């Protein structure tokens, strides 16, 4: 069973342990935490209106979510008018079925795919393969991880966890029809090889499947944003183009999309604009000489409509730029696969429990220092730490938090709510701790706190509590 259907999120700590001991991953993450953050910083510095655009982008999505039912109707109407077909899917299963049915109706053997996180969310490739259709991922990063049988470790850079040597090995393993002694030392040689192989796939595919960064209600348009051009070759060469997108991708107008585009690439890669922003509306027109003859949009809910009106509604503003994970110290430490399902990093820590349940996904919102860097860079101003805290509250209410944590907190709160008992107890405890560490000033190990002392010393207390010392010194005066 693939990880899509069988998330390893409950084993987050074990996943993290493995990731922390993986030197190749650590090398890749070291690069990421420098490169992406510096690029975003530079792009921001060049656009004085950036903060105002963030407000504008947030307001557009808030307005859209407050009227989502009506914008979906307007969007559907325009798609139909332009000759396309809209399929609503309540669940991942319904979305898979809608796509497989189109493939069957067209007798499709192979489909090319542009990068789509929703496709990962619904485990589309598994369903296509079961139906006898061969899916070919065409985004270079997605292609690499498809060769490896992995899921993306990052929402915009799926193979960001890999080094060049790993990719070389994967190509040698996967492309056995090529001479074994070919030179693949340079990244450009790898790129050229992938370009050649995928070019054939593009030209031969029966159907092209892409995601969508935005759907425009005004015109019935779907938009993809890419740098490689793979999404475009995916959708203009085959006879049929299927878009798989979740319902919150709706944006009212071209003007609104312009606002969102200005924050998307800058937040993601630090580019002023990604190379290709492509707006697709319906199938090819009568006098067109290229483009698909059929155009379908599968609109996925998968729990999103139930997030509206809850503490998690703001998560639906997310435009999947990846800035939150690019700036997250926890993501930097463990990479994306540790999160155990499709969406990693801070946005994944909030979204995953919504989509697979807090019983399975509850570890993720706990695995944050609440440093707030994600919220500070989110172009949509999504209060990610606040929403992680809401998940912790739900876990706590439902008694899903680990017993040790509950007892520890309970004991602490018991004393903290009784100030005189607290003062008496801490006075003794600190005196004892201070005495034991009087020669070193620190502890190398402490009972019940190995999570701390396995990795660092625990500085000893001075010995007397502040409140006791204050009382002693100030009363004496």
């Amino acid at each position, binding site marked *: 069973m693939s990880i899509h259907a069988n998330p390893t999120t409950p084993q987050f700590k074990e996943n993290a342990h493995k990731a922390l001991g993986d030197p190749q991953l650590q090398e890749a993450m070291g690069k990421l935490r420098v490169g992406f953050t510096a690029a975003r910083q530079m792009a921001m510095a060049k656009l004085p209106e950036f903060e105002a655009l963030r407000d504008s982008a947030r307001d557009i999505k808030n307005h859209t979510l407050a009227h989502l039912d009506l914008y979906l109707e307007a969007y559907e109407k325009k798609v139909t008018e332009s000759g396309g077909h809209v399929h609503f899917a309540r669940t991942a299963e319904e979305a898979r079925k809608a796509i497989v049915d189109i493939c069957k109706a067209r007798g499709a053997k192979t489909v090319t795919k542009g990068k789509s996180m929703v496709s990962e969310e619904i485990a589309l490739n598994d369903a296509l393969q079961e139906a006898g259709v061969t899916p070919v991922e065409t985004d270079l990063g997605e292609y690499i991880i498809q060769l490896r049988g992995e899921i993306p470790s990052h929402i915009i850079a799926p193979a960001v966890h890999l080094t060049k040597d790993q990719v070389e090995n994967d190509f040698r393993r996967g492309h056995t029809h090529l001479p074994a002694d070919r030179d693949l030392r340079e990244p450009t040689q790898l790129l050229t090889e992938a370009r050649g192989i995928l070019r054939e796939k593009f030209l031969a595919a029966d159907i092209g499947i892409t995601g969508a960064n935005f759907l425009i209600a005004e015109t019935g348009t779907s938009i993809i944003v890419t740098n490689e051009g793979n999404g475009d070759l995916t959708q203009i060469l085959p006879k049929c183009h299927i878009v798989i997108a979740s319902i919150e991708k709706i944006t009212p107008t071209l003007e609104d999309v312009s606002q969102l585009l200005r924050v998307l690439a800058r937040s993601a890669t630090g580019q002023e604009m990604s190379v290709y922003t492509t707006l697709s509306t319906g199938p090819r027109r009568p006098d067109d000489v290229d483009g698909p003859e059929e155009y379908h949009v599968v609109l996925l809910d998968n729990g999103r409509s139930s997030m509206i009106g809850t503490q998690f509604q703001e998560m639906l503003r997310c435009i999947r730029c990846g800035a939150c994970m690019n700036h997250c110290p*926890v993501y930097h*430490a463990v990479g994306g696969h540790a999160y155990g399902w499709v969406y990693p990093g801070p946005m994944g820590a909030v979204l995953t429990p919504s989509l697979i349940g807090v019983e399975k996904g509850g570890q993720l919102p706990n695995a944050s220092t609440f440093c707030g860097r994600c919220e500070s860079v989110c172009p949509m101003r999504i209060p990610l730490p606040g929403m992680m805290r809401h998940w912790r509250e739900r876990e706590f209410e439902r008694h899903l*938090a680990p017993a040790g944590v509950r007892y520890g907190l309970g004991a602490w709160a018991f004393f903290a*709510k009784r100030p005189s008992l607290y003062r008496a107890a801490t006075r003794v405890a600190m005196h004892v701790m201070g005495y034991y560490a009087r020669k070193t000033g620190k502890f190398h190990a402490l009972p019940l706190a190995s*999570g701390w002392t396995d*990795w660092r010393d625990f*500085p000893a207390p001075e010995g007397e509590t502040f409140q006791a010392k204050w009382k002693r010194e100030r009363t004496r005066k």
Partner: protein
Amino acid sequence: MNEATARGKSVGLMATCLVDLFRPTVGFAAAKLLEDAGCTVDVPSQTCCGQPAYNSGDKAHARALALQMIETFEKYDYVVTPSGSCGGTMIKHYPEMFEGDPELQRRAQRFSAKCFELVSFLTDVMKIEKVASAFPRRVTYHDSCSGLRELGVQAQPRKLLATVQGLELVEMKDSDVCCGFGGTFAVKFGEISGQIVERKTQDIIASEAPVLLAGDLGCLMNMAGRLSRKGREMEVRHVAEVLANMTDEAPPIGEPAGVAR
């Protein structure tokens, strides 16, 4: 409020649990800075602001402790704490803890409005321009996350440190990146926390400053603990100790008493 009216005001000093239990010197340093600025300082009987409970999803205990804190401290003109993290909880999160109870929420809002992190209180409210302190060392400064991102504490400590006689501030790389402490995170996810603080200490060491300062004791204990586990001799202190000229009153964090540096 300007300096003329702020002077002579009563300040309730919220020491924080960590300062109360582990490093009283920071509490005394804070009191000295506040008194030098003209405030009347009081230290009422106190425990915890409720942050560990709040961040663990335990809203009931968080509210109980927040209410206890409000009851204890709302009588003062100001409530000042030598921590951006506890300050952030009292200033940003108390009002949201009482959502659904308009009366308590209004009370929490009134309370939050008089709460301040120590160093920003000195510069922004008391309009302190310089401190009477000497510390002829090269220091590097870590921006603790809550203070930085919830309260905007960044320029204020640097401004006052610049007036400490003989002190030279050397900025480390990524001083605004988390040290990996995160309260209970450091114990619950010790291995990840350990990796983050390892990266942090690499940046600290690369600054080549022999002294590390910050405004939050939790982060300081985390970074000091990692530096000492690595065998790095480094003097780690709360920024208030330096600003108050009280570095002789206690050994650096994690060092035994009587160690001369």
